[in-house]
């Protein structure tokens, strides 16, 4: 697996553990499926924990676990399944300020959108990372410098920039 943030390749500090036993046996921070999260945190209260959720999961199921999670990994079954983008928005709307990971065979062309929807990193299968190395992701992120939609990403939208320019002109 390759981990890519907006600054480039990053090291994955989390170890994936699919069962409670595996999670308890692992060293360092673990990334566990949502159904395992409550039991794990009961045994390891306060541990730095990641929760893995399929993109189709309802926010109502995720909400109770967000306060204790350091990382949420949204699993994309395929790059063209856009549910994860909406789920990222809903998770951020709950006030989640931790690491939000898009995990799955995404393509570099989706990087800017993933970041705009609130993801902080992408976890790619190795086969994908070989075809689309980190440089392509960083380049793809820069192809569009402006966007129309307000409330996505950190840069002001075109609509906001127009408003600012108009106010400057009338001052």
């Amino acid at each position, binding site marked *: 697996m390759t981990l890519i943030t907006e600054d480039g390749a990053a090291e994955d500090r989390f170890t994936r553990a699919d069962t409670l036993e595996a999670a308890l046996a692992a060293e360092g921070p673990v990334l566990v499926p949502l159904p395992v999260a409550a039991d794990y945190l009961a045994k390891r209260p306060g541990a730095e924990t990641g929760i893995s959720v399929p993109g189709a999961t309802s926010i109502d199921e995720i909400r109770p676990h967000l306060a204790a999670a350091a990382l949420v990994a949204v699993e994309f079954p395929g790059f*063209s399944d856009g549910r994860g983008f909406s789920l990222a928005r809903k998770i951020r709307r709950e006030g989640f300020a931790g690491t939000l990971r898009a995990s799955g065979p995404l393509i570099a062309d989706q990087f800017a*959108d993933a970041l705009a929807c609130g993801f902080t990193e992408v976890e790619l299968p190795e086969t994908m990372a070989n075809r689309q190395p980190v440089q392509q992701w960083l380049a793809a992120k820069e*192809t569009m410098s402006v966007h129309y939609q*307000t409330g996505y990403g950190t840069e002001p939208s075109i609509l906001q920039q127009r*408003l600012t320019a108009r106010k400057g002109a009338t001052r």
Partner: protein
Amino acid sequence: MYRYDEFDERFVRERVAQFRGQVERRIDGSLSEDEFKPLRLKNGLYLQLHAYMLRIAVPYGTLNSRQLRQLAHIAETYDKGYGHFTTRQNLQFNWPKLKDVPDILGLLADVEMHCIQTSGNCIRNVTSDQFAGVAADEVEDPRPTAELIRQWSSLHPEFVWLPRKFKIAVTGASHDRAAIKVHDIGLKLKRDAAGAVGYEVIVGGGLGRTPMIGKVIREFLPKDELLAYLEAVMRVYNSEGRRDNKFKARVKILVHETGEEEFRARVEEEYARLDGPTINAPDEEVRRIAAYFAPPAYATLPETSAVLDAARAADPALDRFVAQNGFAHKQPGYIALTIALKEIGAVPGDMSAAQMRAFADLAETYSFDEFRVTHSQNLVLPHVRKDDVPAVFAALKAAGLASANAGLITDIIACPGLDYCALATAKSIPIAQAIAKTFADEKRQAAIGELPIKISGCINACGHHHVGAIGILGLEKGGRENYQITVGGDASEHAALGERLGPGIDAEDVPAAIEAIVETYLAEREGGESFIETVRRAGIEPFKAGFASFLDDRAPASEAAE
């Protein structure tokens, strides 16, 4: 009409560069064919039966002369000298080469055009009333709303990977010419009891293999809340729309399976949670866009034109043209003219480069440099002085664009069908041509009156056959092309789906079958009823009976032929 500012310009230029990069990354193997496909589709590039097809966005069907001249140049340089206007007010080139596409996109950007989201599982090019700003029955011009949606939906970070395609139409008039009830979202500008302007929001209409009439999800949405409400609908659909079966992935299926009440509740719940004031366009922006659609500098003229009246009296062809293709303009002394791309025997919607140039000159000289594309694959000169109509008609005739058949039985909508399309199961263009030839006599057409025929060459229904007063669906049956005929479809505010008359028939029998249906109508008609009004009043049964006797009469002849 709308003009790009520096932001729109930069956006479209960067999109061209982005696509150029995507083509390069496909060629060097970074992107697999499966990964590249949706990227090229979202830029309007299809792989068709014989070649690539490039679909160019004509937002809400509005163009100017400079843009049309550029399209003529592209048609001659990169295609076979013509373009094809579609049922979604767009333009398609059927023969571009992949390597040329980035250059074509650059030429389009030079005239403020693009191919963004004319295909793929995303929000498609927004459509509207071709008589926007012209019609007297308008609450408000729908084009500023359509332009706002064009901008908001372009490369939306969250809604580019939807379960399926998503089409939005807007109308501002009481008579619906934008078919809002058969779109994924239909918006109708209206006033509430206090006189405030807002929208009726209709969700879940559509044609295709499971045709459905949309449901009113919001009776009245205040105008300034539009984008936030659209975001709520899109988020519910993106999260919950089916992805297990592409034939059940449209929002109409979600609305149908969830139930209208429950779907409405989910949208309202999402709407209550999102941050409306941030998402919605500021009032200044709405007004900035609206200013581009202010009425042009009309002259103050009397309602009637002595020049035109005299010319009509002297020239029966001009008289027929104005009577059939003219549309009442709200400004005294002006008229809107429909230019039917439906010469008898021609391909519906096709326009040659020479015709584009001739028409561009007319729009520039006589219609404030503006024209419209209609979903009936025709064009409209929206603001012509009545005094100028004789000159315009003469120029149209010279260009082969003066067919006086707008709305008549020979003004047929047809999808590209088996002549171009990889999905088609039957031909549709030759069927349209054969019907047009059968009814070529102008007096006969005039006697029959308004009768929109719509033809699709497969169940995906790009020819909108479900909402044709007569609909024709071409299928493949036992190795032969077979055509099912429906009657009673309507895309207006009386939206209805057509009903099948009986078993499918062979291609060569279609024109005679249409004649039989027309005979039934003429026998049943009361007073000045149009075809669809007769069907609405008399019901489908007389037409079924007429069709059955047509089949009986055909049977001995067919056996003898075998």
